[in-house]
């Protein structure tokens, strides 16, 4: 947890039970050394570097690793540990879980009975209404965190409500939002979800200020970019929280940050979140389970333990492009939370890479061949 300085493989990566993949693949993505000298026939016929890259990708690739849930090793395999574990299961499912459901229900009752009147009665007095609604949303998030026995340690200065600032954090599960929201009522930008989550999004989250996007809409990006800019300019609006990865990653890696949050012309405050998997893995693998199942899994485990670091606000340096800025902030967050960086776009989960990547490889090879042909 929280290694500053170099990003070394943590001991869970160097799993001595399995061969270390890094021993097999040459470092860096380009295996071909710069070819020089006269072009020989074997340079055209020897396709082994390209084949090795392909085989390397088949055996292990840095993208799939980002989304793999790593289940803990079973430890309950003998005469006295197994009954102990069974006892634990009984306590978790029959004692803790009902208690937590009760706590959550009480929380919802308190919340709704305060929120609905405030929302309608204080329609005219917007300033007061917003203040109270903000407070109530923080309360219901605290109830949520309590319902998983969340042990959250916050490090660093609390976010303050100032204009022209945006918060970015790494993304592991939708509970990231709840954990951050219980401290400060952020406005958030989210993918619109179906079901009861969508209902929550359109009613309660509206009050703290939310921006929707739809991954599958192509034109959506410009509309969303404009909404982001408008929100950040407004002095009254809650500070905006963005998850620039765009998708949930398994909390061991970070994928590339989308530059949308970094070209708004305001300060970016990085937030790093690292979950401790000691009792439960908080990674929401949306391909494997629905959000409801994920919440139930959290509510039937002993606790959710995590660290949240509020890091130093960053601004665009002179001569730095938004993409470089995004990478710099990703670096800061990854180092703080002990995550490894991979050079892939999170949206490749949903679509194929564009042909221009392959074309670039082809172009490099073609250029070097033609150049060397001239060197006769």
């Amino acid at each position, binding site marked *: 947890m929280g290694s500053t300085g170099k990003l070394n493989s943590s001991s869970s990566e160097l799993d001595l039970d399995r*061969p270390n993949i890094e021993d097999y693949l040459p470092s860096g993505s380009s295996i071909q050394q710069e070819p020089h000298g006269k*072009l*020989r026939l074997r340079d055209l016929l020897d396709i082994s570097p390209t084949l090795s890259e*392909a085989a390397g*990708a*088949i055996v292990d690739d840095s993208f799939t690793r980002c989304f793999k849930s790593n289940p803990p*090793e079973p430890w309950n395999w003998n005469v006295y540990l197994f009954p102990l574990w069974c006892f634990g299961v009984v306590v978790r499912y029959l004692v803790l879980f009902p208690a937590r459901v009760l706590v959550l229900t009480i929380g919802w009752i308190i919340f709704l009975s305060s929120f609905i009147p405030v929302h309608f009665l204080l329609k005219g007095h917007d300033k007061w209404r917003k203040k109270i609604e903000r407070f109530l949303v923080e309360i219901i998030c605290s109830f949520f965190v309590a319902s998983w026995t969340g042990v959250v340690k916050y490090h660093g200065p609390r976010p303050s409500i100032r204009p022209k600032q945006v918060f970015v954090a790494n993304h592991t599960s939708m509970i990231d939002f709840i954990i951050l929201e219980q401290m400060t009522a952020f406005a958030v930008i989210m993918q619109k979800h179906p079901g009861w989550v969508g209902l929550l999004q359109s009613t309660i989250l509206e009050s703290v200020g939310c921006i929707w996007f739809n991954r599958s809409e192509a034109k959506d990006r410009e509309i969303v970019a404009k909404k982001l800019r408008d929100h950040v300019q407004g002095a009254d609006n809650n500070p905006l929280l963005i998850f620039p990865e765009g998708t949930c990653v398994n909390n061991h890696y970070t994928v590339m940050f989308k530059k949308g949050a970094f070209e708004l012309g305001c300060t970016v405050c990085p937030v790093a979140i690292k979950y401790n998997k000691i009792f439960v893995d908080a990674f929401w693998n949306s391909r494997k389970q629905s959000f409801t199942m994920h919440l139930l899994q959290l509510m039937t485990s002993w606790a959710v333990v995590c660290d949240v670091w509020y890091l130093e606000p960053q601004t665009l340096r002179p001569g730095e492009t938004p993409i470089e800025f995004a990478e710099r902030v990703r670096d800061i967050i990854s180092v703080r939370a002990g995550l490894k960086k991979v050079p892939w776009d999170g949206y490749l989960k949903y679509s194929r890479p564009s042909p221009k990547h392959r074309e670039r490889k082809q172009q490099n090879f*073609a250029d070097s061949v033609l150049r060397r042909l001239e060197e006769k």
Partner: protein
Amino acid sequence: MGNTSSMLTQYDIEEVQEHCNETFSQQEIVSLYERFCQLDRNSCGFIPADEFLSVPEFAVNPLSQRLLRMLDGLNFKEFVAFLSAFSPRATLQHKVEFIFKVYDTDCNGKVTFSEMLSVLRDLTGQFISEQQREILGNTGLKMEVEVPVD
């Protein structure tokens, strides 16, 4: 160790090891099995082409289509045999045979000039024109090393 090796018995591992001529250690075979199961999401016993293409590093490779043809419908034993050419323990002969198979699109045991041009086309895309390819084929570029081709 791990919950997948319980599906692979010691006999299975040894059988696979024999099939690939001892190019992989037993630990490597267990890791490959985990990877195979990870890619074979619907447990159909082979990995569909779609799954390979969902690995971005593989999809951007210029030779991916050729390899997909060779990887189609392979069960785990054949999958390991396919990858054995890449093991450091594989013989040079084995590696050369593998490259030969990649070139030999129609699988008739012979590599023709047009098949070589076809691989070159995959590697260079639209950045070398047809004429340039022909020129490359006919300039009589010298071979430095004798490569035994069956």
